[in-house]
């Protein structure tokens, strides 16, 4: 019996590859947008503007304080209620961007805060503008603190894309869910799904560990 199901699974493997492709696509777009927004928010969060700092603080508290699945439901069900129509794919990307940028923001702010105030003052004293201070003096140093946890966060974000299956986007987990209805071999189907996720996230975990060791040495 298992052999029979296994051969059926082999038959429909392109279906899984499509899911893997979709997961990779969502993950890639999300990581890029999350990083961009996260860096900007992180700069606000560590900055001197109290109002911006507070606003970002509330945003981060919401993102970190509620489950991602609830955030997806809010984006997917409530925005249309408010007149913003989104297909599942865009809603997924939007939810990922909101969630991921909140987490990355904290990592970036932590990195910037780890740089001593004297570095800002030295850069300011020689006449660099605020943007130049950040770009030329602060960020290059902060990157060493930011990079290892950032890559670690990327792994978490890639895994979180699985939750997007709840609004019907045909990514890897959704493919597994649809398949298991037709081929009732849960262990086999989700092992396969798991192996495919593993192939994306494990190299990144190794990279994160490597970066952490390397930065610790410096």
């Amino acid at each position, binding site marked *: 019996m298992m052999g029979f199901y296994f051969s059926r699974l082999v038959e429909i493997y392109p279906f899984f590859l499509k899911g893997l492709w979709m997961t990779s696509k969502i993950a890639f777009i999300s990581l890029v947008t999350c990083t961009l927004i996260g860096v900007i928010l992180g700069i606000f969060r560590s900055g001197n503007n109290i109002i911006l700092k507070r606003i970002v603080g509330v945003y981060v*508290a919401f993102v970190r*304080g509620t489950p991602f699945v609830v955030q997806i*439901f809010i984006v997917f069900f409530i925005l249309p209620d408010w007149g913003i129509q989104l297909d599942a794919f865009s809603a997924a990307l939007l939810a990922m961007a909101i969630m991921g940028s909140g987490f990355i923001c904290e990592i970036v702010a932590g990195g910037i805060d780890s740089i001593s105030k004297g570095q800002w003052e030295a850069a300011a004293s020689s006449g660099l503008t605020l943007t130049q201070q950040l770009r030329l003096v602060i960020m290059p140093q902060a990157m060493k603190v930011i990079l290892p946890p950032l890559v670690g966060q990327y792994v978490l974000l890639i895994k979180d894309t699985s939750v997007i299956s709840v609004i019907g986007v045909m990514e890897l987990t959704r493919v597994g869910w649809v398949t298991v209805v037709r081929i009732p071999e*849960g262990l086999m189907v989700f092992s396969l799904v798991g192996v495919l996720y593993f192939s994306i996230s494990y190299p990144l975990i190794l990279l994160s560990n490597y970066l952490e060791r390397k930065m610790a040495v410096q």
Partner: protein
Amino acid sequence: MLVDFNFRIIFEYLPLFLTGLRSTFFISLVSISLALVTGVIACACRISGIKILKYPAIAFIEIIRSTPLLVQIYFLYFGLPTLGLRVPEIQTGIIALMLNSGAYIAEIIRAGITSVDQGQLEAGTASGLNYIQRMRFIILPQALGVTVPPLLGQSIVLVKDSALLSLISVMELTRCGQTMTSERFMPAEAFFTVAFFYMCIYFCLKALADWSQRKLIFREAY
């Protein structure tokens, strides 16, 4: 938008939400306790130096950490019945949360143990303590303090992770939101209420984690 936010309906559903909240509490509490046990065992195996224990522990930790929790939940939910095991959804969910958080906790504890200064171990060895005694009297008391803040962080993660059990129809907080949405189609009221309750739990645990972190910094300063 928020102008026509219907508070009456929230009050009407409040008993349901409170049951959900209780269920989320229960699931989280049981799962984190079991995960702590799992984590300690997995960590002990990993650092034991005995190959037959070490490699399975490493495999377990790495597999869990590189696959999504939702896939792990589905793996058990759809997989256990094919093995002929009929397990209620809530127990399936708790097992998944236990294994998932257990793997992360194992790494937290390991980081705590490696953070203890090597000289401490040597001092212990020099005064003639054996392995178990060194662990018990020197390493663990010091490691324990360091692990408290990240363990509380992990419990924050676990509470939020328990929301995924709604997808295998466990009646917890998020599932209540889904129920209310399907009965009345008021997703804003439903999910903002759900979010509110999660935020309350989050702030309590966060305050606790920050407090333990401060205590720790204070202790290290002296």
